[in-house]
């Protein structure tokens, strides 16, 4: 016996020296990759699970003859190992006797999302956290989304999602509408490493997302891991751009006591150079050649600190947290936002700032009453103070020379100064309950309420002083109820819902000089009823989705009340209404996925920023019909090389035929024309390579190259005139990124070059954006 043991030991020892790493991929019978599958050897007590791509990696010895592959909802399988093979493919058979919920267990969250009836894309940011990108840049790679930024860090940006843009696309953080967090906290500065997942709903939006989105919703889900962790990152980039983010959680496993802290700090000078044909003030002639001048007044700074405490995953609640958040920002404004191209005269002191204190309480409890009811609610109070400042008596040129104006009462934007101090108190509440009738049928109700009062002072501009002297009140309420089912072994899912909207605004309208005779009180009180339905059917490798919603969008605060500077208040705005239709196909086989989504958005009372000179007022304008298609394809080779291709074509037209809506009267010359100043053909391609053991055994790395394309577009009506049509030219941009991680992603490093070839890129009205930028990011993560 002793000998035998001895022999075995020797054998094992010798064979240990010849241990090797095997890899494999696990799929179901439909070729769908399975994530979280257990791969283990009972005998040798070692094992692993498959990753997000269904891949496992296991160090085995040659004495190991087989490993067991098991996965909830599937029949267990045994994989025989052979010494001359290191790469395996495993197909697990579904065990239909198990409950269907179990089937989705182990899928990635984004896969679960994708299989909902809604047209939705989920982006898990696990792989993205090490990148220096912010959330905006990640979103820009999703088909159908186009992001338009007017400059660098902190600059204004809007999303276009299937042809709806700006506020027609609602953005949420953990289900709470993001605009209430103010401009201190936006996707443009939101660091990727405090994000767990991003859900992008195209068109029809589920009722739990406070429900007044018109063109879709983006929901950012921040990390809510149930363990303790710390995630710290710092990145530095061209133009003195610095970003620091810290995200940490402590959780006591026994009691469930949890404390979370999230904080970030962003700073950038955004002082990139732009070409401007300077004007000689004596002759009035502009130079023949452009001079490169620095954007010297475009800086941005923001910070946020958010502390939450409570319990998670214990007997009382899945989550019961109370939090306090402080955030502020400061932003310099370099030029008129609606000037064509680079303004001849820059601003030198115009700026906005904001401070907010937010208190939040959230409560989540699943599985109440015999596991039938899930309950989810939050209450948020947002107290903020905003300042819009245009008080300089100087006029600046592009070399920062300043001359005192003859009349010191004028400002830089217009011929009067502005110092608006606005106080906003905003209270939000949301209550969501769903009730599982059984495993296949579900009822849900949601009520959200939002109350805002704002008032302010302006020592200079009477228009603002009058507009904000007495508090304005905006109340918005949405009640939604839905029924959803899941039939034929979860291959056929449906949801129908109804929503009741209530919108109320009491305020005043006033004129340029805020005089009493220009001022009158207004009261808007409107109710709407909307319905929607969504279905999905999945067979073999193909999934089909169809959805419809008659949706309402309430005007945003800044659409209603402007910023006191170039955006002029219009409290009389009414909600926008749309019929929105979606039909999507998704083919998903082995390493290859293909998505095609068709959509139609038929909008009334379209809210548009109407530009007069350098001023903007948001107005309900007309009917717009947007039709289009999104395309996405991705594949990979040996899980080393990844290819992603996205594209969108949009046909968005003005469908208001008659002047002032008088049927049979005067036909508008822009009837049926493409809505200008919006890109309508755009896409991107990403090639990436993932590898490991570059310098050591425990490291991994990825290199990715992204090419973005925006087709040329008119920024005024295309059919008007035959010459001198203002066009934003076709744009190609390339980004290159290298990410390197050590010790299971405890230490991470990334280097990125954005706009690699230093292409000239524009957005609004030919206003130029930054050229090539270098970014370095360091991240430390401990679990």
């Amino acid at each position, binding site marked *: 016996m002793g000998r035998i043991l001895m022999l075995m030991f020797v054998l094992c020892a010798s064979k240990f020296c010849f241990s090797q790493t095997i890899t494999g991929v696990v799929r179901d019978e439909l070729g769908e990759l399975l994530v979280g599958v257990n791969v283990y050897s009972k005998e040798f007590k070692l094992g692993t699970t498959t990753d997000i791509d269904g891949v496992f990696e296991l160090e085995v010895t040659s004495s190991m003859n087989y490993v067991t592959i098991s996965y909830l909802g599937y029949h267990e399988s045994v994989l025989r190992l052979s010494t001359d093979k290191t790469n395996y493919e495993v197909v697990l058979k579904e065990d239909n006797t198990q409950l269907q919920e179990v089937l989705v267990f182990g899928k990635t969250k984004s896969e679960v999302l994708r299989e909902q009836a809604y047209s939705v894309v989920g982006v898990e940011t696990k792989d993205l956290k090490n990148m220096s990108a912010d959330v905006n840049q990640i979103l820009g790679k999703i088909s159908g989304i186009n992001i338009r930024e007017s400059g660098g860090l902190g600059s204004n940006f809007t999303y276009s999602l299937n042809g709806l843009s700006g506020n027609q696309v609602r953005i949420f953080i953990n289900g709470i509408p993001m605009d209430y967090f103010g401009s201190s906290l936006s996707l443009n500065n939101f660091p990727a490493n405090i994000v767990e997942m991003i859900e992008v709903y195209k068109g029809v939006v589920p009722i739990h997302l406070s429900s007044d989105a018109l063109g879709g919703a983006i929901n950012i889900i921040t990390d809510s891991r149930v363990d303790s962790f710390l995630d710290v990152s710092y990145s530095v980039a061209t133009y003195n751009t610095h970003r620091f983010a810290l995200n940490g959680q402590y959780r006591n496993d026994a009691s469930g006591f949890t404390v979370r802290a999230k904080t970030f700090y962003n700073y950038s000078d955004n002082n990139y150079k732009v070409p401007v044909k300077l004007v000689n003030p004596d002759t*009035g002639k502009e130079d023949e050649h452009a001079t490169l001048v620095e954007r010297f007044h475009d800086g941005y700074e923001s910070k946020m600190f958010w502390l939450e405490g409570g319990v998670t995953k214990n007997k009382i609640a899945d989550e019961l947290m109370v939090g306090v958040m402080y955030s502020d920002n400061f932003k310099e404004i370099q030029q008129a936002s609606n000037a064509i191209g680079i303004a001849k005269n820059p601003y030198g002191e115009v700026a906005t700032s904001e401070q907010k204190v937010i208190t939040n309480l959230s409560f989540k409890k699943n599985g109440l009453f015999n596991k039938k009811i899930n309950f989810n609610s939050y209450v948020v109070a947002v107290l903020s103070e905003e300042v819009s400042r245009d008080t300089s008596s100087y006029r600046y040129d592009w070399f920062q020379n300043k001359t005192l104006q003859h009349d010191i009462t004028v400002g830089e934007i217009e011929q009067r100064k502005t110092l608006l101090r606005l106080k906003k108190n905003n209270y939000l509440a949301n209550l969501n309950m769903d009730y599982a009738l059984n495993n296949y049928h579900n009822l849900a109700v949601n009520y959200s309420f939002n109350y805002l009062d704002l008032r302010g002072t302006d020592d200079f501009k*009477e228009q603002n002083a009058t507009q904000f002297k007495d508090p304005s009140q905006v109340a918005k309420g949405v009640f939604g109820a839905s029924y959803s089912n899941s039939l034929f072994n979860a291959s056929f899912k449906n949801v129908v819902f109804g929503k009741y909207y209530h919108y109320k605004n009491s305020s005043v309208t006033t004129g340029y000089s805020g005089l009493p005779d220009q001022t009158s009180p207004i009261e808007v009180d409107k109710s709407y009823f909307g319905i929607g339905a969504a279905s999905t059917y999945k067979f073999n490798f193909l999934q089909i989705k169809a959805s419809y919603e008659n949706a309402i969008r309430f005007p945003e605060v800044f659409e209603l009340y402007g910023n006191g500077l170039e955006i002029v208040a219009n409290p009389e705005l009414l909600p926008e209404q749309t019929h929105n239709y979606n039909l999507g196909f998704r083919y998903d086989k082995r390493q290859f996925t293909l998505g095609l989504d068709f959509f139609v958005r038929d909008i009334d009372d379209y809210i548009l920023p109407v530009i007069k000179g350098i001023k903007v007022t948001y107005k309900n304008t007309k009917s717009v019909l947007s039709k289009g298609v999104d395309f996405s394809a991705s594949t990979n080779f040996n899980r080393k090389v990844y290819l992603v291709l996205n594209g969108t074509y949009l046909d968005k037209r003005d469908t208001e035929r008659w002047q002032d809506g008088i049927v049979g009267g005067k036909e508008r010359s822009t009837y049926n024309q493409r809505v200008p100043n919006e890109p309508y053909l755009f896409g991107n391609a990403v090639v990436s390579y993932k590898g490991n053991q570059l310098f050591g055994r425990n490291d991994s790395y990825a290199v990715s190259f992204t090419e973005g394309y925006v087709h040329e577009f008119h920024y*005024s009506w295309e059919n008007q005139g035959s010459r*001198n049509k203002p066009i934003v030219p076709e744009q190609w941009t390339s980004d290159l990124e290298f990410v390197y991680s050590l010790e299971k992603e405890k230490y991470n490093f990334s280097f990125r070059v954005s706009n690699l070839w230093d292409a000239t890129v524009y957005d609004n009205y030919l206003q130029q954006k930054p050229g090539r930028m270098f970014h370095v990011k360091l991240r430390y993560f401990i679990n």
Partner: protein
Amino acid sequence: MNLRKLKVVAFVATMFIAFSCDNENGIEGGSPDPDKTAYYFAAIESGSDPAVEVIANADNFTSGEISPIDNGIQQPTWMAYYNNGNRIISAGYTSGPQFTSYEVVAGELVEVEKVFVDLGVYASAVVDDDTMLFMGAPRSGTAPKKIYEINTIDMTLNKTVEVDFGNDAIAGTISFPVDMKLKGDKLFVAYYMVKDDGSFSTPDANQARIAVLNYPELTVDKIITDDRTANLGRYYSFNVLEEDEKGDIYMFSSSSLACGFAPVPANNSGILRIKSGETEFDSSYHIDFETLSGGYKINDLFYVGNGKAVVKVLKEDETNSAYLWATYSPNSEFPLIEIGVVDLYNQTFEIVSSVPKSGGGWNSASFIEDGKLHIGMSSSSYASIYIVDPETATAEKGSDIDGNYVKSLLYIESE
């Protein structure tokens, strides 16, 4: 849309205009040169949200439709258009206050040169075919105005001169130009008084006022006033100082809420004269227009010939604040403007009833050919050119406009 809203819209729109337009100087009457070809253009505000303007080619102003669709040179919004010599000049804000000149080359209108200034301009005068004067004015505060003398051949600034007249710091009112006319060595600047807070209210408007400047020095000679009527012109009008064949200048006051005067001056809308060679109002000449016409007020006046002028006129309820700025609404559902003919010599007035009412606008689109005035008229239900014959006080419909309204009628004669 109720009148109150209409007023607000008109008011807001008014406030954001950066530039002004002159009447189409230098195209007074006469027949075209037989060696040259006549080119007609209409500057049209052709789309809304975003608004867009086009200098569209037109065969004529008398028939058919003038359409900016795939026709003409697209312009940014809120431009003003001037005709001088064989040139069209468009002015407005792009990357800064800018003037762009266009000429006909090989039968086609092409962009030629650009010049930039530093203030929005609100009045202009023609010096000769190659030179124009523009007056830049602050919209509030007591800073001086500026006169830009622009060489329109190569679009350069000959000079920029600061001028300061008429502001009343104690009363808190400032002078705001409405038209300029150069006569020999005198530059007449008609202006009205507005509150210095940018509100454009008119607490001190019950008097006609003109600043007389020396040319070419552009120094202020004197201010002349007349108590028989109210402030001359109206915001952005520029058809205020009209010259007849004798070289006399006729001018109007609107005294109208709908033309932007609030409070409404006590004196009636009227017409005054400065005789040729004089630099004072002619004390022997005054038309009390409201009395003459039975309650109409003048919105704009175009001298055509033989002592006859075509006027845009309106009636209003001075006590109803909803009328404020109501003639600045080219696509109004409640248009106020009618067309009439006034005989300046015989002091008679006749309404031309065949022209539908117009919502008005800023400067008028007007053009004189063969002793007839072509004028742009529009409301929520139409936009057209009407051709008014002052001799018969009749009008016929000319070209239709495909667009919101016509901003300017432009004309070039070229080989």
